[in-house]
């Protein structure tokens, strides 16, 4: 029997972007307000899961052709790279740098290498969550 979930699918298409942008917001704002890479990653993953629920794994994979195992690895490398990079400059492992810049369009903003590290965390969390859900979901 084929069911017609047109309402669910339509809502998911819209809600996905709301959740996704919220997760990006939480991730970006993590340094000053509650949030960060971990929660942001989980929320992004849940947005994708919503798509999976509304459509199915195959469709979602064709829409978002991401190898989540690679994403996990990229996240780990990014985190480790951010932590190790100061050693090249003769600073201790895990030294962070930050400063304030006047960026075009955005105005005065701070840029912080901790953000890169958090980006690594974000990638890992998305990657791992999706790996788990995908593998379990595909399992017979």
């Amino acid at each position, binding site marked *: 029997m084929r069911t017609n979930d047109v309402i669910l699918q339509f809502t998911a298409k819209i809600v996905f972007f709301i959740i996704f942008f919220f997760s990006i917001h*939480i991730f970006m704002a*993590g*340094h*000053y*307000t*509650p*949030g*960060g*890479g*971990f*929660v942001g990653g*989980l*929320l992004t993953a*849940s947005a994708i899961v919503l798509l999976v629920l509304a459509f199915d794994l195959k469709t979602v994979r064709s829409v978002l052709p991401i190898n989540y*195992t690679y994403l*996990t*690895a990229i*996240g*780990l490398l990014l*985190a*480790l790279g951010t*932590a190790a990079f100061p050693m090249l400059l003769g600073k201790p*492992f*895990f030294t*962070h740098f*930050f400063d304030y810049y006047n960026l075009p369009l955005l105005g005065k903003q*701070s840029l*912080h290498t*901790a953000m890169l*590290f*958090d980006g*690594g*965390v974000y990638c*890992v*969390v998305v*990657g*791992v*969550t999706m*790996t*788990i859900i995908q*593998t*379990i979901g595909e*399992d017979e």
Partner: protein
Amino acid sequence: MSQVLYIFIPMLAAIFVPFLYKSVKNIHTGWFVLAVPATLAIIYATYIAKVAKGEVFLAELPWIPSLDISVVSYLDGLSLLFSLLITGIGSLVVLYSIFYLDKHKEKLHNFYVYLLLFMTAMLGVVQSDHLITLYFFWELTSISSFLLIGYWYTRDASRFGALKSMIITVGGGLMMLGGFILLYLMGDTYSIRELIAMAPELMQHPWFTWSLVLILLGAFTKSAQFPFYIWLPDAMEAPTPVSAYLHSATMVKAGIYLVARFTPIFAVSELWVWLVTGVGLLTLFWGSFFAVKQTDLKGILAFSTVSQLGLIMSLLGAGAVAFHVNGAADTVFKYAAFAAIFHLINHATFKGSLFMIAGIIDHETGTRDIRKLGGLMSIMPLSFTVAAIGTFSMAGLPPFNGFLSKEMFLTAMLSLQNFDLFGFDTWGVLFPIVAWVASIFTFIYSFYFVFHTFSGKYKPEQLPHKPHEAPIGMLISPMILAAFVVTIFFIPNIIGDTFVKPAVYAIQPFLYSAPGDIDIHVQAWHGLSPELFMTIGIVLVGVLLFVALPKWQGLYNAFPRALTLNNFYDKIMLGLDVGLNRVSRLYMTGSMRHYLLYMFSAIVVIVIGTLIVKDAFTFTFKGAAPIHPYGVILIIVLICGTCIALLAKSRLTAIIGLGAVGYTVALFFVIFNAPDLALTQLVIETISVALFLLAFYHLPKLGKSEERIRFQVNRAIISVAVGVMVTLVALSAHSQKLVPSISKYYEETVYSLAGGGNIVNVILVDYRGFDTLFEIAVLSIAGIGILAMIKLRMNRKGKAHENK
């Protein structure tokens, strides 16, 4: 320096033996090996003249200088005597083994490597002046002896004997190590010489008795004293050259050496005198009594060795008496130590030759069972002559050296009656009586050995081979030893002056200032003394009993097997094996629940016990925050959720209860101002509940009965105890904070140093980013693990087992 290296010559030579064995096929490997002990014997012989004058030679090879451990070679009278016995008899045994072991059928490279290792070990034992290296060599003798006994490793009995001797001697060796360490702690030196010099101070130390007993245990196990002698008869499964070398002349005398070497330290103790003399005499009697029971030629010799070792041991104990007598050098007590060393030499000569003869008989007739042998006198006249010399000497008859040492033994035992300390004036009279009875049995088994083998009826039908005289090469070694037996009788004083007196001087250094001062002159004829009458009595009673032997030998069978020490040993081994197996089966049930019970109970006992013992439990309300009404509500919800999870009949309900607990915790985070935690907790709880539901959905249909967790009292008690424990610890920890929190620093520097506003996140990525790095690593590993478990399992259909 080179003197130390001599010890290692056999070990180094052992490296080349396998190559010689493999490459030179035509020549028996033994010929090459023979050069090693022979050379060493010549080298040590050059020391004789100087050592006889009382000189000592010392050489040191540092091993672990920072721990003060070195290989020290100390040659005085005692060490030199043993070194000569080891190398001299070693040469003869190697010569004998060349003819005894077939070069085609036997694994000669194994044999000679083990033998050479043993030689190094033995030389090390007798020359070491350092406690730790002495122990090192001591265990090396145990190991090489284990290998030699198990040489024919395809035989059950060989392996059993090897294992038994290993367990007993290594057990004793470990005791001895304990004694050595105590000695080191008492004297703060590893050197035996220095320990001897400080003997009077050592005696005052509370550990003195402990180290005495432990070292004696080592000596008694190695020298096969009662009740540890049981390994020696089983060690007779070794090839006969090994029995002749290890189990008569050298290794079993390592314990004797140890007792002799430590006499100057311990002889001041009453316990030492009693233990050494008493155990020695008991062993002497026991060994000689049970030797008559044996039917195996080597069995008789094994018990005889046990008995003779007991004799030497008791003499050393009696020699210790001299330390308690003023002016001992002028009294009768001086004989004991002299007799001990003298008999040690004599025993090495005659017992070595007897073992070799037993090997010859075994080799030529194919059996060692004395019931099948008989009437070989005319077939093997040379072997008979040697055997007769050996046994008559063992029995203590003139004109053989055993007579002299036996007379001195009786003198020493008789003199013990005159000793008036330690209760010897009352019990001392027992010593000569036991010695006399044991001597009678010695006489009987000696005659039993030689006459039941060589005289009587010839029974060719029972012998596997047609017997004939042994090849001359095999007879050379026993004949040389037999020649010594006779020669020593006629020149006892030359032997005494060259070998015995320097050794006695080493045992009793406080009594004499030089070996020459020892005023003992051995005489074959010493007048109509009580000793002579005792000997005549021994011969008379011995002959009578020997003639009547067939009538009373059966009495031995009346002795129940259940009461023997061997049976006792077997029972202990079996009991340990079975019993310990049972014990570990008792608690290693394989059930995870049991193991969790053990762990939780152990944690509870340890933690609550510590709280009570240390009186660490305190509880104050000081510094506690006021309770918020929301908190109360949440706690009630939390408790309800927990109870549902525990008591629910359906698993689905339990999962939902658990989810409720998780969300309540998230709410707690909210009211305790932890928004990051609350966010994460909410999302994570959702995911884990979803995963639980997934697992629930896939439970197998079979046997999936919905029922409550069964109530079990012990589990309830332990879980309540764990809860109480955690609560108590948390309360106590909260009530006594010793250092203020460091969170102030984060609060102050979060903006200025780290450029952020969210302390939690800044701590996670900046202050303590290291932790986060590895947490995401953990997460990745979990993800990859799940991927691997699900994707990489073998395809169930078709290839169900990867092995097929």
